[in-house]
């Protein structure tokens, strides 16, 4: 299982805001257990979608600061169940962005309905802590398209 919860970035203003999508395949393995007869995307994965999306917005702002990593879920609300086969639109607004930390207000919409929102807190991990040559393929793809 890959742990990439963003398919494509639609809009990005580095360090300020981002909009991305994730199409939720009915084939996702977790639907077998969450839950039989009532498959819905787990809240932790919706949170991960928001964290990955906001993280890309921060990573695009200043890669020298290191990679943005989710450090704290300040708050999170889950309003509606998200069944398989839906297209999730994920948005994040960066509220503060400092050399040591950042905060973001994030949300996920499905069928024009806000299904969840969260306030997330990020810290940064130096790039040399990751495998040599590690790149964010989704962010790279978006940035390449913009050139």
């Amino acid at each position: 299982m890959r742990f990439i919860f963003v398919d494509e970035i639609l809009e990005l203003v580095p360090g300020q805001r981002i909009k991305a999508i994730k199409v939720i395949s009915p084939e996702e393995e977790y639907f077998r257990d969450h839950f039989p007869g009532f498959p819905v995307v787990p809240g932790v994965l919706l949170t991960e979608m928001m964290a990955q999306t906001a993280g890309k917005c921060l990573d695009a702002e200043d890669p020298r600061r290191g990679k943005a990593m989710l450090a704290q879920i300040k708050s999170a609300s889950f309003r509606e169940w998200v069944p398989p086969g839906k297209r999730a639109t994920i948005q994040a607004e960066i509220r503060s962005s400092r050399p040591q930390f950042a905060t973001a207000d994030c949300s996920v919409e499905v069928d024009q309905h806000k299904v969840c929102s969260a306030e997330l807190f990020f810290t940064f991990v130096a790039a040399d802590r990751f495998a040599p040559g590690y790149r964010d393929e989704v962010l790279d793809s978006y940035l390449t398209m913009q050139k």
Partner: protein
Amino acid sequence: MPTLMTEKEVLKWIAELFEESANNVFLDTPREAIPAWDSLGVLTLMAALDERFDLVLSDAEMRAMKKAGDIVEVLRKNGKLN
């Protein structure tokens, strides 16, 4: 502009930030007595001071804070206390 807090209100704010009972946080309460005031807690405090008081502190200033009263003093020094 954020409303100025009294010393007592700041101590309550610190307690809430670090998920402590207000009865456990006093001016002389050391950082070690507040489990959530760890390395992540330092960043959380830094962010909270920025958001609540519009106060951006350096790493050195953050490291210098050893007890709850030090946070109160930083706020007083920066004119953020009522």
